[in-house]
């Protein structure tokens, strides 16, 4: 018996290991890049072969886009249930999981009736703990034995991002605007502050629906999930779908004329007032602070 983990670079996989260790040892790892260019059915096939050889008691992966995709394919081809976006697990049968639903605004306790629990771990939720590391599985024979049907869906090209700005997913600071910004032109002061901070510009769904910003700027459940050091929310009410994208944000500064807005209840720091005065004042203050330093 063994616990199998699908690994990819980054903190999400370290969180996955934290939950995987609860299933005991030994642990083995298959790498997401076992096949390059990426072919999700092939990775799922390798994972299935590895799980069978190890008689794995459970298979876990990070709840990233690719983690979810490969695990769902593994579930489909193995005829097993899959519990996505788990934050906790009790490994004694019947296995119970706690998983995020509604973009993280609800927590579900569920029973996972399966001889081989398949679990993805919600990013930014599980505190990383140290412990035994998994042994990398030698999968060369599984790669060599792939059926060509499992290579039909495969990355054949890459398109570079169209926007030249700072990426939302990797930004250390995000300055984000909501309905309160008022118009497409109103984003000039948001962009100015973002420029001074080397920050990415984000927005809420109300803004993309109004056509003020492209969907690539949208933060939230159906937009981009972000994890900056600081998230500055300007005129964003803070609907649960928006907050679902902010789970990884270390600090939230909220600027809003409505002190009762949900965003103001979920922020670390709040400024009440008109963002059209406050945001330019912050930009001016940064310029002043930098000038004083020289």
């Amino acid at each position, binding site marked *: 018996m063994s616990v199998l983990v699908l690994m990819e670079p980054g903190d999400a996989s370290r969180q996955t290991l934290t939950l995987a260790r609860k299933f005991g040892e030994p642990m083995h790892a298959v790498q997401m890049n076992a096949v390059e260019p*990426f072919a*999700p059915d092939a990775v799922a096939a390798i994972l299935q072969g590895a799980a069978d050889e190890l008689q794995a008691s459970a298979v876990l992966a990070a709840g990233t*886009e690719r983690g*979810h995709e490969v*695990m*769902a*394919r593994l579930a*489909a081809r193995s005829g097993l*249930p*899959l519990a996505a*976006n788990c934050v906790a697990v009790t490994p004694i049968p019947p296995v*119970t999981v706690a998983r995020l*639903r*509604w973009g993280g*605004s*609800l*927590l*579900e*306790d*569920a*029973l*996972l*009736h*399966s001889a081989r629990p398949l679990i*993805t771990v919600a990013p930014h939720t599980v505190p990383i703990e140290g412990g035994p590391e998994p042994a990398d599985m030698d999968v060369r024979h599984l790669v060599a034995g792939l059926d060509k049907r499992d290579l039909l*869906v495969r*990355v*054949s*090209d*890459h*398109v*570079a991002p169209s926007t030249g700005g700072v*990426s939302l997913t*990797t930004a250390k*600071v995000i300055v984000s605007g909501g309905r309160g910004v008022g118009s497409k032109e109103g984003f000039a002061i948001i962009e100015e502050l973002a420029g001074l*901070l080397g920050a990415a510009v984000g927005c809420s769904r109300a803004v*993309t629906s109004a056509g003020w910003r492209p*969907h*690539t700027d949208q933060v939230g*459940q*159906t937009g981009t999930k972000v994890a900056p*050091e*600081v998230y500055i929310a300007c005129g964003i009410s803070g609907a649960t779908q928006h907050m679902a994208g902010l789970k990884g944000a270390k*600090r939230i*500064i909220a600027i809003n004329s409505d002190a009762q807005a949900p965003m103001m*209840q979920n*922020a670390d*720091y*709040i*400024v*009440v*007032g*008109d963002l059209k005065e*406050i945001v*330019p*004042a*912050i930009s001016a*203050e*940064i310029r002043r*602070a930098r000038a004083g330093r020289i």
Partner: protein
Amino acid sequence: MLTEDARAIDTRHLGFTMSPHEECGVEEAVRIIEANKGDSVVLTLGPVEAVEQLRDAMALGVDRAIHLETDGQEWDGEATADAITDAIRADEAANGPFDLIFFGNESADSGGFQVGIRVAYALGRPCVTGLKKVTVEGTNVRCEQEVEGGRDVYVVPLPAVLTVKEGLNLPRYPSVPGKMRARSKPVAVSAPMRPAPRLELVSLAVPGGQGRRAESLGTGATAAPAVVEVLRKAGVL
């Protein structure tokens, strides 16, 4: 608000809408049919009230609907996919094969990330997920999937199953004539059996510790120095 048994959201005072990912899937299907001729069909599994979302999809231009009606109980991803697969097989046997089947990448409520993929496997068709752009090119479909640092491109042969995300397109608003026509478009209703779930909901809860304790930095423009101090302490200035 949760129901008393904490197994569902109390929806008595709520309205329903199609989720953003699915809305884009419907819009894309309608656009493809407008450009290439043919028929589009919308399918959902859900309670009686879900027929409203089917009508909304038909108001956007979808030709007919299939409603897999439930009694409101929770269906897990596996059971949902099985019921949808059966319905697609039955429809294809009667009306001919679908070239493309669209799903939302993940459901807004359950967030299982699996139904489209399971259906694709059951039907033995290629599946590409998380798409932000779809282009039919002859007997193939070119798909763009958003990833870190741009988009990955996949080209797969038709028939195929595609799971899509909001941002794929900007869905149109339904026109008044569209809404009128939707009323008379056919909805085929059936009630599949719900198998015992293998991912079985026990209870729902609002997660604790979500609220952060907000510290006021002041009011209006005079708060700017305090904001800059927070940025400095965070090491991002």
